[in-house]
């Protein structure tokens, strides 16, 4: 039946190809089959009539390449090294390209920054490339024009304007590309332009603090892997802060608790809203957002008293917090030089205090170093002045959206509208670009040449993996054209590299070898000499004073946080990211105001009640663990431009943020909540929060584990003893695939969920369907609360198909569409499935997913597609993995352990005539996991990592007392409680 389609879309639909790599045409084409589809529409009765009538069947054509490029083998994937960068997300990636279409991003194991794992946003970014809302050609006002026309007009005007003394302002996000920086330098010179970098959620406060404390504006590198004690004051370093993928890897390396790696770090999180990092902390101390300053002062004072620093008069934080801080102080003191204190506030005074605490603890130079400093977050608020200036002549907005993300949105809007020339260079339409006179389409990052120096001395390249889909031009190319520079951007980069970096390496003798080598590795590591900074205590006193004298907030304090999936505002464009539930609240599609249970009870607010906050109306969500007088709202939602109307979810909370003494502040004190009496739908994926005392996530404390590695898991052995069966044991002659998941390293970041989405062509169902529990993700990350509702302990568990040896689902399928493979996989045959959902009912893990409606367009019945996110149009379908069936309406699907990867790797081994190596085969979720929490392999091989983990005393199986004999094992969660 052709309801399940491997998707092959025409590349040459868009424009003739010029790059050598894209020369030629696709290998195979399928014309829409009508007969088989037609039959399915008819019932069995009418089938007989159609059967005998079927004289003609459609002709399928097979169209070869005109000239087959050497590196492309039709039907095999090609991999290119590249990089992803957006705000605080940077990953060196390998792009998997099938038939000229990038379909998957994988971590680059050679990378020194992100050798394993990516973030969920990186995984989902494949969808961005195929976004239907992208600009397709240059636009002047509302009129489509050609590039030459746009170039000529803009150049003339630019020259005129700069000649007549008007300012030309170029606003970009933080540029980490050295070549681009050089180019912009040249541009500003030739057009006498000002260049400003703008970050929607900036870290200029941090840079300012470092300038005061260390005399350098650089953001240091943090080494969480070396920290035995981590104290974070409202800093979500595992979720959104600075470099979360890198930090997750570092952090989790110290959470992987084994006999050979027994040193568990200790993590204190002092925070108001429940953040991803807070849910992972060993001890989470709940404190109001307005108390952060006091807490930092208190920490300084207490530590200072032991380290000989001057004390400062200050009201201490509330008793309950101070009480708990004693342990924090003791542990910090005990781990001098092996601890990290971080704070997630852009207030430079706070950061100065944090700097001095770290200095006091001897962490600077140890866990916090200024060698490979971060190059991103260079944005500040200085651009506003230039933009709002009456003398503004031309504004060029390059891929930034201040109209959406800045509280002074109205003034910015007016300034842009007032400017004689306004140009936006961006891939996707946004609120700012819509205001500009000229909208110049830029390609997505997978269509681009670029380079990036994310951390000092680590330079990466980006290379295009897809021929430009639309009539777009990279911003750098645009600048080159305007400057009448004859070089292509690719050559420009190459020239820059040859002149700057070629000399700094010795491995390659010729510059072309060097270039090719770099493209292959994706990254070049330069030997920077370690930079030394000198600490300057003088700034601390003032900072302490300011922090100590902060007014207490009356009423509620609002805390704006970066949405873990939406980021600063790119997320809503991507339906995968919107559909991926928040790891803490488990809500998909939209933001909400998190409010503490006690406060909610006091104001009689229930989940989904819309409340009025300033001039913002937003549904409330009762969040256990939320500080009583703090409300948290995620940023990045409420986009109105560039997002299909059906998936415009959430509210834009940026207007509530404020600029205080030239620094963006994401807190608002003294707010009142007014219920509006309306309610709004929250797509709550997980409805029940407690484990009901069941041994689902088994946990123990570090102390208990040291006594007994099987602590918290005693029942495992007991249950194993009781496993008896009348039936003979099934024999798996070759492989027996299994997976082990370390609950202790898993942070819940959801990269695996999104990797699985991308790899396995999982459909998007939209807010309404998701709220009806029709979500389709094959992995879910269950989150349970334990204990006090005011500050509960959080336990997480990624659950996918457990591939049981004695699977309850298999017994009940009437058509045997699911059964056991000889390699221990629970196979699901979509084309056999008739959709009784009996298997799903009988699955104790509820991991099977049913295609309730025609989400994919693969169904044979016409006019019934349900695709609110508009991702089944031909353009979006190019993202599909051709090795995985796109499922039709009415069939069950579930995790297959990435069977397509298993088949591919087995075949590779067979062709090479060698046994498979352990670790050679990685599932998509495993590959994407920055925490290294997932291990996949052959259980028949006693030496494989997964076999060893299965024998670990911490290992258990979910609901093992049911004797389903899952192939997935979980390692107990061990918390380092004090």
């Amino acid at each position: 039946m052709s309801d399940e389609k491997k998707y092959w879309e025409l590349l040459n639909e868009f424009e003739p190809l010029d790059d050598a790599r894209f020369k030629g045409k696709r290998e195979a084409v399928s014309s829409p089959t009508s007969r088989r589809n037609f039959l399915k529409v008819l019932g069995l009765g009418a089938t007989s009539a159609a059967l005998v009538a079927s004289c003609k069947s459609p002709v399928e054509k097979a169209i070869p390449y005109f000239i087959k490029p050497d590196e492309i083998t039709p039907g095999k994937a090609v991999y290119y090294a590249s990089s992803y960068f957006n705000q605080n997300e940077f990953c060196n990636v390998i792009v998997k390209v099938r038939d000229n279409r990038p379909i998957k991003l994988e971590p680059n194991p050679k990378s020194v920054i992100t050798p394993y794992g990516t973030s969920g946003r990186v995984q989902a970014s494949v969808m961005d490339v195929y976004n239907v809302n992208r600009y397709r050609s240059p636009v002047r006002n509302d009129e489509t024009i050609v590039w030459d026309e746009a170039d000529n007009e803009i150049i003339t005007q630019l020259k005129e304007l700069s000649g007549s003394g008007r300012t030309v302002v170029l606003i970009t996000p933080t540029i980490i590309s050295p070549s681009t920086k050089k180019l912009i330098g040249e541009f500003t010179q030739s057009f006498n332009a000002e260049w400003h970098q703008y970050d929607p959620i900036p870290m200029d406060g941090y840079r300012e603090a470092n300038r005061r404390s260390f005399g350098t504006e650089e953001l240091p590198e943090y080494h969480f892997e070396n920290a035995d004690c981590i104290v974070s004051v409202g800093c979500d370093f595992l979720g959104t802060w600075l470099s979360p993928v890198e930090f997750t890897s570092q952090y989790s390396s110290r959470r992987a608790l084994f006999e050979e790696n027994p040193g568990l770090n200790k993590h204190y999180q002092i925070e108001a809203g429940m953040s991803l990092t807070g849910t992972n902390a060993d001890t989470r101390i709940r404190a109001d957002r307005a108390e952060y300053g006091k807490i930092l002062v208190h920490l300084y004072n207490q530590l200072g008293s032991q380290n000989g620093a001057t004390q400062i008069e200050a009201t201490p934080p509330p008793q309950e917090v101070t009480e708990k801080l004693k342990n924090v102080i003791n542990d910090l003191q005990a781990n001098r030089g092996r601890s990290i204190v971080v704070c997630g506030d852009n207030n430079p005074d706070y950061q100065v205090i944090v700097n001095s605490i770290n200095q006091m603890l001897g962490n600077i130079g140890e866990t916090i170093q200024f060698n490979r400093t971060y190059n991103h977050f260079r944005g500040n608020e200085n651009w506003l002045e230039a933009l709002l200036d009456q003398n503004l002549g031309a504004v060029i907005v390059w891929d930034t959206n201040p109209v959406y993300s800045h509280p002074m949105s109205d003034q910015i809007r007016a300034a842009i509208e007032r400017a004689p020339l306004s140009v936006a260079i961006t891939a996707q339409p946004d609120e700012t670009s819509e205001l500009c006179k000229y909208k110049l389409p830029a390609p997505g990052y997978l269509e681009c040449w670029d380079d990036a120096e994310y951390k000092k001395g680590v330079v990466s390249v980006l290379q295009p993996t897809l021929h430009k889909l639309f009539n777009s031009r990279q911003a750098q190319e645009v600048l080159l054209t305007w400057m009448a520079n004859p070089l292509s951007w690719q050559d420009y980069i190459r020239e820059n590299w040859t002149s700057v970096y070629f000399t700094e390496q010795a491995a390659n003798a010729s510059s072309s070898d060097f270039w090719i080598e770099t493209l292959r590795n994706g990254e070049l590591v330069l030997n920077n000499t370690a930079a030394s900074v000198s600490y300057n205590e003088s700034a601390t006193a003032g900072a302490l004073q300011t922090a100590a004298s902060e007014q207490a907030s009356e009423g509620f304090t609002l805390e704006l946080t970066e949405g873990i999936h939406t980021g600063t505002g790119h997320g809503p464009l991507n339906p995968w990211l919107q559909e991926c539930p928040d790891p803490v609240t488990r809500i998909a599609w939209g933001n909400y105001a998190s409010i503490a249970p006690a406060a909610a009870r006091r104001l009689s607010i229930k989940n989904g009640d819309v409340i009025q906050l300033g001039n913002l109306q937003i549904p409330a969500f009762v969040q256990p663990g939320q500080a009583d007088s703090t409300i948290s709202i995620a940023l990045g939602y409420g986009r109105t431009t560039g997002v299909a109307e059906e998936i415009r979810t959430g509210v834009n909370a940026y207007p509530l943020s404020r600029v205080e003494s030239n620094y963006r502040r994401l807190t608002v004190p003294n707010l009142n909540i007014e219920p509006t009496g309306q309610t709004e739908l929250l797509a709550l994926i997980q409805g029940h929060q407690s484990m009901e005392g069941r041994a689902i996530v088994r946990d123990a404390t570090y102390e208990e584990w040291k006594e007994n590695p099987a602590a918290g898991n005693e029942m495992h052995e007991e249950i194993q003893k009781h496993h008896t069966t009348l039936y003979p044991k099934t024999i798996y002659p070759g492989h027996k695939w299994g997976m082990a998941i370390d609950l202790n390293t898993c942070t819940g970041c959801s990269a695996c969920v999104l990797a699985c989405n991308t790899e396995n062509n999982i459909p998007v169902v939209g807010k309404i369907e998701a709220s009806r529990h029709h979500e389709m993700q094959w992995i879910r990350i269950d989150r349970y609360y334990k204990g006090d509702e005011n500050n509960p302990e959080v336990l997480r568990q990624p659950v996918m198909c457990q591939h049981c040896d004695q699977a309850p689902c298999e017994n009940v399928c009437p058509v045997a569409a699911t059964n056991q493979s000889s390699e221990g996989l629970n196979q699901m045959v979509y084309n056999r499935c008739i959709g009784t959902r009996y298997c799903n009912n009988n699955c104790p893990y509820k991991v099977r997913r049913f295609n309730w409606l025609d989400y994919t367009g693969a169904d044979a019945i016409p006019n019934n597609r349900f695709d609110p996110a508009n991702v089944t149009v031909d353009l979006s379908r190019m993202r599909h993995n051709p090795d995985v069936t796109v499922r039709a309406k009415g069939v069950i699907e579930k995790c297959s352990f990435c069977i397509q990867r298993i088949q591919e790797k087995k075949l590779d081994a067979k062709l090479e005539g060698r046994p498979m190596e352990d670790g050679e085969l990685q599932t998509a979720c495993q590959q994407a996991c920055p925490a290294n929490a997932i291990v996949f392999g052959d259980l028949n091989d006693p030496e494989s990592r997964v076999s060893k983990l299965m024998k670990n005393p911490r290992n258990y199986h979910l609901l093992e007392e049911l004797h389903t004999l899952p192939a997935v094992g979980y390692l107990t969660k061990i918390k380092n409680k004090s």
Partner: protein
Amino acid sequence: MMHVSPVREPLINGEKSYNDITNDVMAPVRAKPGKLWYIGITVSTIVMIFGFAMIGYTVWFGIGKWGVNRTIGWGWSITNFVWWVGIGHAGTFISAILLLFRQKWRTSINRAAEAMTIFAVMCAGIFPLIHMGRLPLGFFILPYPNSRELWVNFNSPLLWDVFAITTYLLVSLLFWYMGLIPDLGTIRDRMKTLWKKKAYNFLSFGWKGSARHWHRHESMSLILAGLAAPLVLSVHTIVSFDFATSVIPGWHTTIFPPYFVSGAVFSGFAMVLTLMIVTRKALHLEEYITVGHVESMNKVIIATGSIVGIAYITELFMAWYSGVEYERYAFLNRALGPYAWAYWIMMTCNVISPQLLWFKKLRRNLTFTFILSIFINIGMWFERFVIVVTSLHRDYLPSSWTMYKPTWVEVAIYLGTFGLFFTLFFLFIRVFPVIALSEVKSVARSSAKKFIGKPIKNKTPEK
């Protein structure tokens, strides 16, 4: 000649000759249908068509148009399926098992009850079909030879269902129809219009009442009854396997087969009562379907109802006694959880209300019986709802717990099956004799209140 049994209550009231019986029972077939009948069949046909349109809607757009979700894969569809199948137990139970036990009172009600059985099973059969996500490919469940060399999964209770329900439907149909052919012969001979005569002759398979045929017919009926009796028991046993063989707490119970069978007979008898109390009035068959019949059925109801009650309590006990936390929670959740209202409706209707039938006065009170029978039907529907939905909605992993609310599509389909059921029933009472003529005649002599052996004169049937 008068045979009035001193101990037993007569099964036929009034003074009846064989000819009277023929005429009384045939009256609805012969007479022109009344206004009520036309209204009834119009309404039920419209409802049926709407229900089928909604089935089409579901097949076209997908099961997502229902309220079921990732945790509760079966909602109203399977609830209705089990309910209808349960109702479909009475007819064959009455005609087969009571035949084997030589209960003569069955003769007045078995025909209608069997018809009801068949219609109910037809309604039931719709649901497992339409709950499939890919109905057009539903033929995959048939073990037919194919070039894929694929067969079906004989381990699956759902497949057993396919066999059980089809067999039950076919055997019930055979049993019913074989009982009908002598009566259809009777109607044929009373018909005056040629085409009607021909049509009824066609339907009656050319029955002529020969002693040899009767001899074989009786022998066949007995064996069919012997086959149908275990079949009746097996059908709901197998339906109960859908739940009992699973791992879901609240489903995974060995008590299910007997519990389901008695529940089925319970609900089936209730439905028979609901229908017969109306039918006897509407078709003026009060003398054939007597209060004595109603009482006998009420006795079966109280017996099966009590078994069901014991089963409920046993379930609770076993859940506690097993010591399995999931089982315990499942039953606590039934009684106290978000769906407790359904549980208590079930308990009230199925366990408490039938106990009133211990009073003979109430047993013989038609109005009370009618109301009670509707109560039982409601209660038994909720029993299935409780089993299907409350067991699923909170199973093993709390992270997956959800709630379920039907959509109007599901409601419309359920109503549509009522439409189908009543449409068929309305047609049935006009076309076929509602009471087994020959069987009633065969017991008339011994069980009628007043039997007139020889008619006063050789009168011909009324026109």
